[in-house]
């Protein structure tokens, strides 16, 4: 498998990133170099191996569903790029 310019553009779209032509060219090289190195995993037979996501078994932890005070709105809004009263302002998405 080799990464092409089309792949870079497709993945960039998925990741919501944009790149200049020069950056795309560099990314093709970098991704192929790293993915080439990763190919070595195929030397291992994992046909009968299960996946593990976490390093060890994690049990579900349950707690009572109790109402607790949450963070004050003003602290959240202070970090927002643009606000109006109690709302975060974003561009119109419906005509």
């Amino acid at each position, binding site marked *: *498998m080799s*990464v092409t310019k089309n*792949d*870079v553009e*497709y*993945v*960039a779209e*998925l*990741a*919501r*990133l*944009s*790149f200049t032509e020069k950056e795309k060219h560099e*990314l093709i090289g*970098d*991704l192929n*170099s*790293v*993915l080439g*190195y*990763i190919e*070595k*995993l*195929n*030397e*291992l037979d*994992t046909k009968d*191996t*299960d*996946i*593990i*996501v*976490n*390093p*060890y078994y*994690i049990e*579900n*932890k349950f*707690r009572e569903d109790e109402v607790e005070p949450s*963070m004050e709105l003003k*602290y*959240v809004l*202070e*970090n*927002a*790029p*643009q606000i109006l009263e109690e709302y*975060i302002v*974003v*561009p119109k*998405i419906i005509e």
Partner: protein
Amino acid sequence: MELHKLKAHELKKLINSKEVKVEEVTNAFFNRIDTTDDKIGAYLYKAKEEAILNAKRLDNKLGAEGKLEGLGGVPVAIKDNISVKGMQNTCGSKILEGYISPYDATVTERIKSSNGIILGKLNMDEFAMGSSNENSAYKKVINPWKKEYVPGGSSGASAAAVAAFESPLTLGTETGGSVRQPSSFCGVVGLKPTYGRISRYGVTAFGSTLDQVGTIGRDVEDCALLTGAIAGIDKMDFTTVNTPVQDYSKSLIKDIKGKKIGIPEEYFGEGLDDKVRKCIDEAIRVLEDNGAIVKKISLPLTEYSLAAYYIISSAEASSNLARFDGIRFGHRSKDALDAIDIYTKSRSEGFGKEVKRRIMLGTYALSSGYYDAYYKKALKVRNLIKQDFAKNFEEFDILVSPTSPSTAFKFGEKTEDVLSMYLSDVYTVPVNIAGLPAISVPCGFVNGLPVGLQFIGNYFREDVLFNMAYSYEASTDWHKKSAVIE
């Protein structure tokens, strides 16, 4: 008396015997930071006013209660991806410039309730992605031992600040070696605990099945002190485990008679610097002299760890970093035309090169048609690597190896070749894949740069790690060497 040169446990003692005030200690470190940090570049934010207020409060508390338990009034500096209420949390990235944490991470809360003083926030590779701190969007961090050399990464400033006496204790984070590798490069003690030992609530996520908060100090006792103060179950992080936290102070004994040490031969192969190898061989002899039984072992899957790591960590990062979209917090592009454009432009302007590279790698690995070949394959290899370790821990108490194949490298030396940079973590990453605890301890110098000795323990056996590391340290003088800031 130069207070900033004292270790945390020494300061705690002096404070509790009322020979010095918490306020004096706090001031001493800010004086040190003011005179030295221009040359080091460790701090991104100094919280002097708040720290002095807290110091005064603790001095009053000591006066009233006669004793300061836990951290005992000792300062701690915190990596800038761990939330401290009211302080910035840039993660070393422009995308979070101006953001103020509205809450404390659990580890922050525990430092505060354990009578610690928070000095400020420390520089890092952007979103903890990097092995040299060269990926910080703000400034570079200098290795206190030699100014032309990197401090390691991504917690490069957390290690450098301790080595440069700018804080006795620091917190870093690890996804793949990011506490141990810089600790090795800067000649300090750094612990990566078992996955689930320390809460990540309030810590900016990178690779969620790998991330852990790590502790750094100038000796094993200091590292154990800080670890004990923050470890344990947390209802805000469901991956934390309800296994009791041992009293690590009981591990600080020299006796390791009969303890079985495995030496994984794969960690001594091609790529290991010969002079580093000599230091490690010498260290193993010290452990033998102290009564440990040493035997060579094999971890045949070691060479696959890094490949599995880059898939798993990048895939998880691409998902975790989706939250930085310019809408609710962080950088929002001024030039965006519509909603989608806000995402793309804000992210493209806000993220640095390495972060974008990893998001691209991770998104590619998770994209349709490639998921099985990359991500699923890496998770299967993860299982095999875990089994590799588990087999050996049936027989051995601990594994010993170098922390990194070489000492610190020069600025710019590995920035062109992505893979060569990644390879500096080849001995640290397997531990993250398996979720095991490990510690790096100073064990010598090569051309004036520190070498790190790595101990790898079984799950939740930080007590054994501290015992072995302490035994080694008590028999050597490396931890007493100080960097002279050029």
